[in-house]
């Protein structure tokens, strides 16, 4: 496991400062009780210096290894042992350094109190560090998870938008190939349109919002290409009001829906087909209705595939976290797909 962000360096200074304050307090209490300043300082430095060392060691251990939640008894026992070792070392060291018999008697009497204080101190240090590092690791994990989620969401959005049908591309190229011989000017024009259209699909910002005007312009490029392919069989009607033109929509959202409408419109009838696109802004949201004729007799079996709109629904969900933004309706031989685009502004 990697060491958490909150590094030793940042925390070590306040920890030492706290110990110095605590040590000074202990020395002051000792001089107040009538001991020599030198004796008080030695006592305080030895006991608190050791305790600080233990504290830092415990902290370092906890940084890399934290016993599980259920193991408090185990920690309690450890804490008891550490405090016992500490009191042993302190007693031995102080009796070597100080010879004053009054002090030694006092030291002996105060051992239980000292042990208890040390036990509490190490216990607290362990607990605080345990909580701190656990918290840090949790937030680290949360962040990593959020990052991973965002990455996969972005990738999914990208994939959803990339679902340009190769069928469309190859058939368009075939139309161009055909025009090249007979009407080279038109062929050149169509290459231009196809290039502009493809450029739009290559933009890789899936969350980008463009104005409806831009989106409709882009859609027009696509429709012009389809009209060259299908000739007189395909006609389109686009209705919108001037105010809606400035409203933002996710880029490249309409084209797959219209492509779907054309596919089911044209492949379901042998006559001419009119696709209508009707844009309305109402109740602070943009409603775009795309209509294509269909034959209820033969397209029934196709309904099962969801008319190929599931990827658009998924995309809208990823963008707006709502599942009710796309609706389909079939009546009077007309199939209508309505997309709602919330306007948060």
């Amino acid at each position, binding site marked *: 496991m990697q060491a958490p962000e909150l590094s030793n360096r940042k925390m070590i200074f306040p920890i030492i400062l706290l110990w110095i304050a605590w040590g000074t307090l202990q020395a002051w209490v000792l001089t107040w009780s009538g001991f020599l300043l030198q004796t008080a300082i030695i006592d305080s430095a030895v006991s608190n210096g050791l305790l600080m060392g233990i504290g830092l060691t415990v902290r370092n251990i906890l940084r890399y290894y934290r016993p599980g939640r259920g193991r408090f008894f185990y920690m309690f026992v450890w804490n008891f042992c550490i405090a016992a070792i500490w009191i042993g070392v302190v007693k031995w060291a102080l009796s070597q350094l100080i010879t004053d018999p009054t002090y030694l008697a006092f030291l002996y009497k105060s051992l239980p109190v000292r042990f208890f204080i040390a036990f509490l101190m190490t216990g607290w240090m362990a607990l605080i560090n345990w909580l701190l590092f656990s918290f840090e690791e949790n937030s680290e994990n949360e962040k990593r998870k959020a990052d991973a989620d965002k990455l996969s969401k972005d990738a999914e959005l990208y994939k959803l938008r990339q679902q340009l049908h*190769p*069928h469309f591309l*190859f*058939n368009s*190229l*075939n*139309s*161009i*190939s*055909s*025009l090249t*011989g*007979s009407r080279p000017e038109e062929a050149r024009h169509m290459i231009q349109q196809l290039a502009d259209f493809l450029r739009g699909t290559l933009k890789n910002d899936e969350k980008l919002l463009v104005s409806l005007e831009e989106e409709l312009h882009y859609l027009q490029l696509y429709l012009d290409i389809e009209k*060259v*392919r*299908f*000739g007189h*069989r395909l006609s389109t009607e686009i209705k919108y009001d001037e105010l809606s033109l400035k409203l933002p929509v996710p880029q490249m959202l309409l084209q797959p829906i219209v492509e779907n409408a054309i596919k089911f419109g*044209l*492949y*379901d*009838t*042998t006559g001419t087909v009119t696709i209508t696109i009707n844009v309305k802004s109402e109740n602070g949201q943009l409603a775009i209705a795309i209509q294509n004729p269909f034959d209820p*007799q*033969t397209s*029934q*079996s*196709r309904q*099962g595939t969801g008319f190929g709109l599931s990827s658009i629904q998924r995309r809208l969900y990823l963008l707006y976290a709502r599942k009710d933004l796309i609706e389909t309706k079939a009546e009077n031989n007309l199939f209508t797909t309505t997309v709602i685009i919330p306007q948060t502004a």
Partner: protein
Amino acid sequence: MIKAILIDDEPLARSILAEYLQSYTDISIVQECSDGFEGVKAITQHQPDLIFLDVQMPKINGFEMLELLDTPPAVIFTTAFDEYAMKAFEAHAVDYLLKPFSKERFDKAMKKWKEHYEKPDGKEAIQSLIESASQQPDQYNRVVVKTGSKIRIIPMHEIQYLEADDDYVKIHTADGSHLKKKTMSYFEEVLDKVQFVRVHRSYIIQIQQVTRIEPYEKEGHLAILKSGARIPISKTGYPKLKSILGI
């Protein structure tokens, strides 16, 4: 003169074929069609030697159109369909052209056809082409039939039951029955096994059409359908039907 028919729903796709065919002075295009219905009519009328056929077309696709013909002509597919899907038919079709294709590639297909044209076993190849084309997934959910000059697309769920009839299978629906030149085992294979069950050598029924099962003579059974039709169930068919119905 060799007769050819072009069948493609995109006018420009037909015109490039016409352009490429100009250099073949012995071939004349007798008709251009923009869908499978027109195609069936034109082929029946002109009996062409060669057709150029698009796969994805309105109403019925190229494979379904071929199924409706009694004597299918030699076929060169022209398609933007992916190559892998077409590989399956390579052995049977004269050739397939992936759009967009060059004049050189077109000439190669024509050369293949000319060689093929002189061979007598061309008809069989077409028949096996149709067999393998039927394995296309989008044809699982419907059947295209021709009664006289009328073409009908029957969604699978409208089929009440199927009955063997010599070389044909009789498809029974609410508005009458239709003949299709297929085998019972073909339908047993492609139909949804949850909805359809072969209860007899000569019968496949749709489960949801069954209203009750009656004993019939000794040891035999009959399935009574919603339409009132009484379908015999064979000894091997009965346990199959029982397990699907969960009884």
